[in-house]
């Protein structure tokens, strides 16, 4: 199994989720993160004190999938999250050793 982590722009979350559902992926986990990269941040000024805000709001999506689905999943995310502008984000793929569904104790592929 593979574990896919994608860092995307926040407003791309809904399109990505829809693309994944279309692929038959039924579960994923999302968190709010801040990203630092090529995309420039912005400056905030409060009474003359400048703060360089270099971290930008991003969304992290985590999806565990069967290995044979991994490539398609990455492809689907890439397409849905693409805007062509700097800061679109990255997709990371990991090997996943083991999965368990708490409710049923099913494991591995059956648990996804």
């Amino acid at each position: 199994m593979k574990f896919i982590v994608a860092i995307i722009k926040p407003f791309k979350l809904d399109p990505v989720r829809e693309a994944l559902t279309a692929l038959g992926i039924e579960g994923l986990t999302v968190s709010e993160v801040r990203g630092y990269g090529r995309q420039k941040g912005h400056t905030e000024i409060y009474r003359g004190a400048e703060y360089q805000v270099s971290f930008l709001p991003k969304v992290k999506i985590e999806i565990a999938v069967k290995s044979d689905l991994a490539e398609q999943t990455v492809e689907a995310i890439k397409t849905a999250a693409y805007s062509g502008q700097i800061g679109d984000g990255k997709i990371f793929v990991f090997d996943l050793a083991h999965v368990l569904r708490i409710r049923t104790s099913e494991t591995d592929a059956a648990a996804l």
Partner: protein
Amino acid sequence: MKSIKHMVPAVLTGAGVFAGSLLASVAAFAQDADPAVLDSGDNAWLLVSTTIVLMMTIPGIALFYGGMVRKKNVLSVLMQSFAICCLISILWFVVGYSLAFKGEGAFIGDLSGAFFKGLTVDSLLGDSGPTISEATFVIFQMTFAIITPALIMGAVAERMKFSAVLIFTALWSLLVYVPIAHMVWGSGGIFLEMGALDFAGGTVVHINSGVAALVACLVLGKRTGYRTENMAPHNLVLTVIGASLLWIGWFGFNGGSALGASGGAAMALITTQIAASAAALAWMFAEWMVHKKPSVLGVASGAVAGLVAITPAAGFVTAGGAFWIGLAGGVICFFASTAVKRKLGYDDSLDVFGVHGVGGIVGAILTGVFATSVITGADAPVGLLEGNGGQMMVQIYAIVATIIYCAIVSYIILKVLDLIMGIRVDVDSEREGLDIRLHGESVL
């Protein structure tokens, strides 16, 4: 009382002073006047003014300041405003009111009215004509005594011990606020005798708190991480609520200082509104030019700067005068709180000196410029623009004397406290936040 026309001496002294002298039974107008009688309309307006001036501190200042600090310290800031409100109320009852408004001293009152001795439901302010209840005056003035030390706390936010805040507040109120209030408003007070104009407390409240704030932040030292860590305001929504309530409450602060629901009170509302608006726009546009963007913190800060600047003048100038005072207050406080402060390098966390100190000084001086007989009804010229240059000198004298007195005594109090108990929290507490460390609470 209500009619500004009867207030000729007040022209020279400010309405607060006028009240002081009345209280002290200076029978100036009593000769062929009717005996004093309660005017329910005037009293109603002063009761309301009291209520909304109290609202300036809780929750006004609390929120204005609370929104500007980091999230880990927001409760500590609210705590300071709230506890100061309680502490000063009790002190005012015990000796504060008496020392400020009883007796005839040049520098301070006496203890004849300690514990509100002699105050009854029938006591009236002054000897003749329609007037308000003395009890009303007592609590109206109490709200001024409350807000002044609460303002100072903005300068020491995020690093002062709460125990030190309480003790400093009590000492400062008795050793600085009360004497200055007496000198400006109390019967026999030197600034009063001198004829300094301070309608609603520019000197007593704003210059006083601003100067003490500057001293306090210098004695305390900068916040850990100042200029290296991000200290951006955590929630300006709170700050805007606070600024709005300050503005609203200032109608009681300035309007109530007319001591009646008169046309003069209405005019004070107008000058207050115009000055606040002009200053807010001035700050906003200055910021827009200098920093490229107009900010809500800027417009709110500007409004407060304008409110501060108009305070000593509110009942002495026209709407036009108020406009210029606001404009000057907004622009000057903008530079004082940004470029100048950066250059000087002190860490006045929330710019109490830059807004209240500087704005108070600008306002006190410009009062001497724009005060006019058109509004005060005086027979002689009043301000510089009417040709009375002497008023400016008196104003400056009162300002300088206040600054010197306040700075020295504030410094001594802080230094002594620091020696005895330490006034600053340790670095770990600063890092983790005062909310958890000092108060065992946090905002989720």
